[in-house]
């Protein structure tokens, strides 16, 4: 018959190749595929021999279910009523019923002419498939340290960044958000700080598109189906050149065959200021000033400046998604709008995200193609800052303005006191400064996978993404104490763009031979990334009306060198990689990777590096002695070692001798643009290498009531990239990018999930995760081209301009290396301890009187979550915590200088502490940053609806940050913790933290 002939032309691979080759020659493959698909569809509507109906457990018909004859490629799918028909079916044939998300069933025809089938949902848990990079694995086959979280388990509520859905939920994955700035994404660190400059941001892979955490910000949180986090080097090695800091694989939601649905989510949230600083009020201030006889101006007001710069905020989060399809074609399209008004005056953001994902199968399901397009446009109102001096930022001003000053004068103009250096009225600063951004980003990708023959698949993946950001900044000329005032109006407009292109060619081979299973993956990958941008500045405006929208309104005579600038750089990564998975009797598992990576950023002769990894696992529960155990359902021991190369944080061109323009000067009476040496070049730059050993144990006990895993890892970073200190002369500048130091990270991770109650109507689960990480700089010294270098005690973080945290050999990154407080003298000066007993306290960065006074990195972080469901009611609590990290509270120290109370406000306790002037920064200001937070409380109710069209109607209430238990004296203990310079230091840099209350509606229509 025609049908059979057409459908089965693929059986003969020679024929098929000839066909492919021919159409390639004609160069119209795509057209042919379209035509072919049409023919196939047309010819399928033929007379019947075997029929039946497929239903779900509720008895509803299931359209789009694939029914195939095992061992052939013949088959069909069910229609809208779940009915299928097959022709010329041999009596001894075996039918395979399959549908995404349902268990596949095999049924022998046994001569019957009608077979009705009820498909059961696929069991989650052990059968889970985990994304492991360029493919997926059954969870039971995973040999490395990989965590997965599915959307039904995400942190609910008013989520503005996808990472918030994961915060506090995974071991070894530290997601931290300092304050509630609408334009500040959370930071994510996987298993500590592994690099000083090579890059600590994990690689983010969204449906194959690679990028940094900025890629997440362009996604709608509600589009995400799952996160898979590759934590150990043997897992992340597959992403070698970019995966050294771990990998977050994001899979977005796809349409499901046969389930056409419309989903609407709406969440509205109110944000209040959760933590306020303890500052003197007007009465306290006057009392102290009177008592101490300081002469100070009293303007008669009673102002709480912190209250004046904050407000209640709102978050509105609306999503709409349509999805559906057949077994051959599925789609999902969504639109999401997230609008946030921040709790600091004038800060906010508006984000619109659109996403379209279409999957189609052709050539009798052998060719599978996925198109994905995601666009995001964000309008941001940033907190007004002033790059003049940090004392001018709104927060500093709000903390330090005296409470006796009014916000506005009687004539309505903003108050300022011109006799105080650097005086800024914070309310004026926030209200009068325009600091806006328009961020547009998109990515598009195509993935095609062709099943060449039974076990071999060839794939092509190509993506392009672009982030295009435009910023505008304007400060009017009457804004006292700012750039605007200095220049009689100051405007800046700038644009930056990131372009990134990616091409993967993949080959996947799978073979099962009796007791052996083999999977091989080979990949060629090419990535190119370019950054470019320009900036222009205008000064001296006679009208503020156009703010930054017409720089030409500025005075041409006031243009300064550097007011117009632009830049562009480009870098390329190329990789060849191979992975082999092998399983023997499903008991002994092996994964091996080898990757050959090249980076354009490295020195001419060191561009390429080879990074191997291997891991093994033993499924002990498959052994005969455990196979009948009633307590142990699954038990797996894992061991892995891997090496990954890192160069992520390296700026391009560091290996080249370059000249760049460096301002202008007057030479021979004419302005001349100057060119000069722009950097010390290092032609020997090479890959930073991270090596990691991981030992893990996964278990399912008590009939899958208790699940969990333990992991221990030991990571070692070699050839650590950093901008090392070098002497001038002979070097031109005092730093050089080089590979010198070493760093280690060791840790233990434990996650447990227990289901005390698990019945049809009621379920209760409790999850705990616990992670430790011990970070240590092993070395910063070494030899460069035969020259001994001595980089140590590198100032890493400052408070009020003084170095308090350091990179110090033998200590963790950012250790607080400060003086010891030994009291206060009669003058109110701090006495510092003479720790080396040489009779005096040396004040400098390398002073022997400094000591290791604390670590900004926690001893451990943890999360506790529990969810409860009874019939239509559900509840969820998420607690997060951090223990043993210290914070240098520079903010507090500056509110403790009574000598300055005449012009600045202080904390009430400053009177008891007694500091008049700060002699230098001591351990007195180091405070325990441990905290325990109820970060999420959600109550939900699924309203039972009789209407058949409505499959789900859910109401929910979420409260975020209901309480935090901490001994920390600042407004919130969760401050910058990304390991970058200055982390762990509170120095007026923390956007206030919000407590939010959200109400949400979720509606799904069939």
């Amino acid at each position, binding site marked *: 018959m025609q049908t059979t002939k057409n459908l089965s032309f693929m059986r003969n*691979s020679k024929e098929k*190749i000839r066909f492919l*080759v021919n159409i390639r020659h004609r160069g119209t493959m795509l057209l042919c595929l379209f035509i072919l698909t049409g023919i196939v569809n047309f010819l399928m509507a033929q007379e019947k021999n075997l029929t039946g109906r497929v239903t779900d457990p509720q008895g509803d018909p299931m359209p789009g279910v694939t029914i195939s004859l095992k061992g052939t490629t013949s088959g069909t799918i069910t229609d809208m009523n779940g009915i299928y028909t097959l022709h010329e079916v041999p009596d001894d044939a075996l039918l395979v019923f399959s549908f995404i998300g349902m268990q596949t069933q095999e049924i022998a025809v046994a001569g019957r002419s009608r077979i009705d089938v009820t498909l059961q949902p696929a069991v989650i848990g052990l059968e889970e498939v985990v994304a492991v990079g360029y493919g997926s694995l059954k969870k039971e086959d995973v040999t490395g340290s990989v965590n997965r979280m599915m959307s039904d388990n995400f942190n609910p509520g008013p989520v503005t960044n996808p990472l918030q859905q994961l915060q506090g939920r995974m071991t070894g994955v530290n997601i931290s958000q300092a304050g509630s700035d609408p334009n500040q994404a959370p930071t994510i660190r996987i298993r500590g700080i592994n690099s000083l400059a090579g890059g600590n941001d994990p690689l983010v892979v969204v449906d194959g598109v690679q990028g940094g955490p900025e890629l997440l910000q362009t996604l709608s949180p509600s589009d995400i189906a799952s996160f898979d986090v590759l934590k150990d080097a043997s897992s992340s090695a597959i992403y070698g050149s970019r995966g050294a800091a771990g990998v977050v694989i994001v899979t977005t939601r796809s349409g499901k065959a046969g389930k056409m649905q419309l989903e609407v989510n709406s969440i509205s949230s109110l944000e209040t200021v959760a933590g306020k600083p303890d500052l003197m009020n007007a009465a306290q201030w006057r009392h102290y000033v009177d008592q101490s006889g300081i002469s100070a101006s009293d303007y008669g007001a009673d102002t709480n400046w912190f209250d004046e710069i904050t407000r209640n905020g709102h978050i509105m989060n609306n999503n709409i998604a349509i999805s559906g399809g057949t077994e051959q074609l599925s789609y999902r399209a969504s639109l999401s709008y997230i609008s946030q008004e921040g709790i600091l005056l004038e800060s906010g953001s508006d984000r619109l995200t659109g996403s379209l994902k279409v999957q189609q199968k052709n050539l009798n399901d052998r060719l599978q193609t996925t198109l994905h397009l995601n666009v995001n446009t964000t309008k941001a109102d940033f907190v007004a800052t002033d790059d003049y001096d940090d004392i001018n930022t709104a927060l500093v001003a709000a903390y330090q303005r005296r409470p006796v000053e009014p916000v506005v004068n009687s004539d309505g103009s903003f108050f300022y006191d*011109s*006799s105080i*250096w650097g005086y800024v009225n914070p309310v004026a600063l926030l209200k009068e400064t325009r600091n806006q951004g328009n961020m547009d980003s998109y990515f598009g990708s195509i993935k095609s996978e062709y099943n*060449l023959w039974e076990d071999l698949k060839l794939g092509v993946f190509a993506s392009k993404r672009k982030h295009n950001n435009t910023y505008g900044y304007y400060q009017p000329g009457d804004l006292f104490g700012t750039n605007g*005032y*200095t*220049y*009689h109006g100051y405007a800046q407009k700038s644009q930056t763009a990131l372009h990134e292109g990616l091409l993967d*060619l993949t080959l996947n081979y799978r073979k099962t031979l009796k007791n052996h299973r083999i999977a091989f993956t080979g990949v060629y990958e090419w990535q190119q990334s370019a950054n470019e941008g320009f900036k222009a500045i205008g*000064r*001296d405006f006679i009208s503020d009306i156009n703010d930054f929208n017409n720089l030409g309104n500025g005075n041409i*005579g*006031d*243009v300064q*060198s550097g007011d117009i600038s632009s830049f562009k750089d480009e*870098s*390329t990564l190329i990789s060849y990689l191979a992975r082999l998975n092998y399983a023997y009797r499903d008991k002994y598992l092996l994964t091996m990777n080898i990757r050959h990576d*090249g980076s*354009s950023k490295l020195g001419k002769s060191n561009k390429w590096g080879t990074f191997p990894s291997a891991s093994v696992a033993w499924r002990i529960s498959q052994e005969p002695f455990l196979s009948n155990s009633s307590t142990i359902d699954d038990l797996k021991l894992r061991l892995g070692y891997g090496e990954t190369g890192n160069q992520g944080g390296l700026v391009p*061109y560091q290996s080249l001798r*370059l*000249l760049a323009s460096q301002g*202008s*000067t*007057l*030479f*021979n009476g004419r302005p*001349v643009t*100057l*060119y*000069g*040496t*722009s950097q010390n070049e290092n032609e020997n730059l090479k890959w930073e290498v991270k090596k990691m050993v991981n030992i893990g144990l996964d278990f399912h006990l008590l009939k899958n009531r208790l699940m969990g895993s333990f992991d221990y890892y030991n990571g070692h970073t070699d050839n650590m990239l950093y901008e090392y*200190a070098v*002497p*001038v*002369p*002979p070097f*031109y*500048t*005092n730093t050089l990018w080089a590979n010198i130091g070493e760093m280690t990270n060791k840790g233990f991770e434990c996650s447990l999930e227990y289901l005390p109650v698990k019945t049809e109507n009621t379920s209760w689960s409790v999850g705990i995760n616990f992670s430790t990480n011990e970070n240590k700089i092993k070395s910063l010294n070494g030899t460069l*081209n*035969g*020259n*001994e270098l*001595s980089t*140590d005690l590198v100032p890493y973080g400052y408070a009020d*301009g*003084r170095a308090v945290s350091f990179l110090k050999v033998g200590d963790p990154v950012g250790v607080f290396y400060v003086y010891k407080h030994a009291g206060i003298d009669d003058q109110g000066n701090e006495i510092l301890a003479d720790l080396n007993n040489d009779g005096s306290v*040396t004040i*400098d960065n*390398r002073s022997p009187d400094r000591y290791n006074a604390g670590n900004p990195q926690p001893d451990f972080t943890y999360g506790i979550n529990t969810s409860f469901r009874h019939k239509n009611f559900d509840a969820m609590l998420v607690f997060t915590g951090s223990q043993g990290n210290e914070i240098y509270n520079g903010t507090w120290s500056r509110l403790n*200088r009574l*000598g*300055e109370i005449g*012009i600045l406000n202080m904390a009430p306790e400053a009177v008891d502490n007694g500091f008049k002037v700060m002699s*230098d920064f001591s351990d007195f200001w180091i405070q325990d940053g441990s905290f325990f937070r109820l970060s999420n409380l959600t109550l939900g109710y699924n309203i039972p609806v009789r209407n058949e069209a409505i499959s789900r109607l859910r109401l929910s209430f979420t409260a975020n940050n209901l309480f935090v238990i901490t001994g920390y004296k600042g407004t919130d203990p969760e401050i910058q913790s990304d390991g970058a310079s200055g982390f762990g230091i509170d120095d007026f840099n923390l956007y206030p933290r919000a407590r939010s209350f959200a109400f949400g509606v979720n509606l799904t229509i069939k």
Partner: protein
Amino acid sequence: MNKFLIYFSLLFLLLPACSNLDEKVYDQIEADRFYTTDEQITNALARIYAQLRSEANHQGYAGEKGWYDLNEVTTDELMIPARGASWQDGGVWMQLYRHNWTPSHNFLGGTWEWLYQAIIDCNTALEVFNASQSGEQYIAEARVLRSFFYFLLLDGWGNVPVITDRATPLSETSQSTRSEVFAFVEKELRENVPLLGDAKESLYGRFNQAAGYSLLAKLYLNAEVYTGTNRWADALEACNKVEELGYDLHNDYFALFGDECPTDEVILAIPIDPVLAPKMIYEFRTLAYEHGQAYGISSWNGACVHENFLRKYANGDIRKNQWIYGEPVEVNGQVVKNGNGGDLVYQPSIASLENAGTYEGARNLKFSFERAPYNGNSGGNDFPVFRFADVLLMRAECALRLNDELQAVSDLNRVRQRAGLPPFSGTLTPGELLDERARELCWEGWRRQDLIRLGKFGTAHDFMPGSHNHFELFPIAETTLANNPGLTQNKGY
């Protein structure tokens, strides 16, 4: 199957073609692709002059917290007291004034690096000039400029590495003795100054022969400090060379500090323009906030002088008018109000270095906004590095040391006459010449060197309790020393 394999293999054979990792540079220039045109070659010279001005912190004459401050704030003619919370800056200004700085003083490392960057720029330029025909005329100028920067190192640090190649290995950067550095600078200047141009106007802002001889005069004038052996006669001869090249005093003292320096007196100026070549901050740093606001700018209310310094001026000395104190400040004919609503008056007395009153200390108007265009970022007054009044006073000092008092008094009187003072009477002493230099050249960057030469740098004054003579050299910065353990720290630190 076989055909497929062939095609598939072909695909992978194509891959090496996609393995090019050469970097394409878009916004900078690879060094071997520059310095190919005359304009680009000239740019290498302009780059060095820009270093002389460099406005970044810890750098050139237009920058704060660098060479200028190390040579001024350490003396009695420029003081930056803390005023409440302002100007505390971790005590850096007070340490300089009191002479109790340590190797961790944060002006030191940057200033050292600025000097060596300028020297490496000279070496780079010389490499370019030597390789090109059109660069030949610049070689002498670049060598004299390099000598100027070595002269500053010699003066500030003494034993310093002398490097003359762009790419000198670290192993070849050991310190020369102060005498060796002196000898190097002397030789370079003797060989190259005569090769410089002698024009004034067309070489404005550049080293001409007179500027070269002025530098040579400074080198010899301080030779005893640098090497232990005085060179008064050589210094005097270099001063004569300058006069022979046609320099004289400009009739109006204050016109020397305007938008452009008059070339009849000023031998080497640093051209400054508030927009094209900033910055001139001395006026910003001295004026009280309200005083600056009267000019429409944010001034910093920092630098001032103790009343004892003002006592050096005789009545009728027009140069005293560069200091403002004791009477209400006027801008554009309007009296400026202070923060409390009264008239703004600077008080010459200063209560303490740790906490001076807002309006305490006389302020200097040498580089006044009245004499040059300015904006919120910078004044526009050009800065005179060498001028003939300085040369005359140097010659007077040499003559006096060589017992030619007649010549000494004659040179001194030319300077006094312009200042509206009668001829000098009495016995001329080096100390009197030192005071004259202070009156004439205050805030022009030479006071520290002059005090050291006269052995008075460590003398107690005002809030300065007196200091040991090891402070006559700066220490090598803690950071510099840490990065290059091969360096030996100066004695006493």
